[in-house]
């Protein structure tokens, strides 16, 4: 018990950082699902592509000495913007090529296409990474890697001190900023109204002179750009990326979206933080709690069990509304 309390501050900090990443990725799932009722399997891979694009820009700029001439915050911002533009465009392209022709097809077919897209993306990124660097696992330096100590032990002697990377704070700040901006956009702006209208009823929306295709494209752009931005944050936080990080992470982010109620933007944010903190808690304490029989390697199983439990007891999620299927 004391061990758990002792590590709690560190677990909370790491959990918040991870949760922020899940939350922003979950937004992409939830937005697309809200509008098209399609699980965009490729979203995890879009996140991964964002991480690779960001790292590529970082490495290229460090190679040419451009990085040294810019202040680091501006450089960070620049990398994120480039990655966001790239993944946003990628998301739009995927929608145009793979999803739009199937909009009227049975759900099964579009899910299969989505799954195919995610496989293609994994391999294309692997090609490029392996061609350029000789290895598909790519490491990069962190721009804000310095650590500071958070003296949690001064609050109560039960807690141990935690260390915080500056990048953790950047993740939290950026994630909050992105989420608030998105929430404002969807709830206040004219395009946001159009988006919600299309999500509610595509045909009626089109009768109200809303350009449905444009709204869907915009949704894909925003969702994918958010995913790409998170990819950059992730690469900066953890340093090492490979083309297969998007798969499990995407699944957990999807769990977060389901937990919060799929289609519900605020729910997805909440779900992301819950999953992130629970997962960190599990990965550092499962061994202690079960007397060493189950260790941190079960943390993915843990996230998955949350998904199953939510689906059994509250399939509409914490903040979602139960939808009755109509004939």
């Amino acid at each position, binding site marked *: 018990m004391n061990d758990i309390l002792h590590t709690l501050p560190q677990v909370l900090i790491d959990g918040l950082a991870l949760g922020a990443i899940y939350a922003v990725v979950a937004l992409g799932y939830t937005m697309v699902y809200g509008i098209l*009722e*399609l*699980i965009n*399997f490729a979203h995890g891979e879009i996140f991964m592509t964002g991480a690779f694009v960001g790292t590529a820009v970082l490495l290229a700029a460090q190679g040419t000495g451009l990085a040294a001439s810019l202040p680091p915050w501006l450089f960070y911002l620049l990398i994120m913007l480039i990655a966001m533009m790239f993944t946003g465009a990628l998301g739009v392209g995927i929608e145009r090529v*793979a999803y739009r*022709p*199937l909009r009227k*097809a*049975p*759900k*099964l*077919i*579009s*899910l*299969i*296409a989505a*799954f*195919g*897209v*995610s*496989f*293609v*993306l*994994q*391999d*294309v990124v*692997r*090609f490029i990474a*392996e*061609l350029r660097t000789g290895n*598909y696992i790519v490491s990069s330096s962190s721009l804000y890697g310095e650590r500071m100590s958070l003296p949690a032990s001064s609050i109560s002697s039960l807690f141990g001190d935690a260390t915080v990377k500056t990048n953790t704070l950047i993740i939290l700040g950026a994630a909050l900023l992105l989420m608030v901006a998105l929430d404002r956009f969807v709830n206040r702006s004219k395009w946001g109204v159009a988006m919600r209208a299309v999500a509610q009823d595509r045909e009626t929306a089109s009768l109200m002179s809303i350009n449905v295709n444009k709204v869907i494209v915009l949704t894909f752009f925003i969702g994918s750009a958010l995913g790409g931005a998170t990819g950059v944050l992730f690469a900066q936080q953890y340093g090492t990326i490979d083309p297969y990080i998007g*798969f*499990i992470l995407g*699944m957990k982010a*999807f769990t977060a979206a*389901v937990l919060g109620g799929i289609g519900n933007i605020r729910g997805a944010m909440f779900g992301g933080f819950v999953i992130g903190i629970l997962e960190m808690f599990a990965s550092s304490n499962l061994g202690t709690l079960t007397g*060493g*029989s*189950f*260790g941190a*390697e*079960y943390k*993915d*199983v843990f996230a*998955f069990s949350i*998904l*199953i439990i939510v*689906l*059994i007891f509250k*399939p509409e999620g914490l903040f979602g509304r139960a939808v009755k*299927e109509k*004939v």
Partner: protein
Amino acid sequence: MEINSTRERLAGSKSLQAGLLAAFVVVTSGAVYLMDKSVLAFLLLLGSLLLLYYTGFSNGIKWASAGILLLLVIPFAASGGSSHEAYMEVAAQCGIYVAMALGLNIVVGFAGLLDMGFVAFFAVGAYTYGIFATAQANNFIPGSLFPLPGGSFWIFILLGGFMAGIFGILLGLPVLRVKGDYLAIVTLGFGEIIRIIFNNMEKPINITNGAMGLSSIQPPDLFGFKFTFPHQFYFIVIGILAVVIFAVRRLEHSRLGRSWKAVRENEIAAQSMGIPLIRTKLTAFAIGASFSGMMGVVFAAKQTFIDPTSFTLVESTTILVMVVLGGMGSVPGVILGASLVTILNLQVLTELTSALNALSNNGYIGIPTALSPSKMQRLIFGLILILFAIFRPNGLIRARNRKVSLESVAGSGVYPAPAGRAAIRK
């Protein structure tokens, strides 16, 4: 014009078809027998089965000739050269994948439930045999009873299928109640989770031996005859495959099979016609999983070694690609798709890779290793999934529903003319 008239003559005359097919089989099997290692000839020989499918003979003759081809001609032709075992390995692997793809076809093709972690059930079957046919089970069952003798393999085929079916039901129970899209992601997760669990179950009790895997699994044993080589396993695989194909064809047109298709087309309509939704979906899940589990047992016995790396997401996707490529819901299509993908995986890609390697070693062209074809599975499978979903959702051989003419129904007495209560039957 010329082609059309030839085609008509060919379609009209069965003796011509038989003659051409026989000539084709003789030439290709001769080539396989005489040449040392010719992938092309072997592929063409397997292709004769496809030709057979398109001939105009009655089903009985087709099945009989397929049996002769599979049991006599192909094993004999392959036995000619030094690459006998290599050929039979491919053929056995093909059979294993065909059975699994047929299992997935029940879930995806007939019942319309997208299962993306199908390899999990294959793993359950493989580990069911693997654990008890090695000394591994001694770790949690007292008394040195294990490894079980190879004779138990035959019971384990059923047990493996049964265990996989149980897992199918356990996974399906929570998920099948919610909307279909969740099923895809949950099965996707399950496929990955089961690998993680098998990878870590060496503590607290060592059940699966973790990442080390299980080695020296007992070979099957039939009255003292031990099966150790691929050309011997080939016959086991063909035997099970025959049972699986028979079962699938019977199921497809049974009451259950028709319920699956009804659920696939429209759940609500099917439910209002009195089809129990959950039970119908669960049986699809369980039966599909059990085919996979049976072949898992064979796989474990054939490899004599299993570890969690054989059961990855790529494997699940491979099986899904087979079904989508061949045609969801179409039994001949899925058999074709499974054979094509297996051969692509085991033969074409590896041959291409070694050819390219030879070229770049000789300095003709510089192909970076990143682009070697055997690593491109994900790209190829992804493209197949996307392209077939968009342009050919029915696959190579589209599924056809059996047509029943009105007269035969009225005459058969199964559904008597509506006359009072007698017409209402269960």
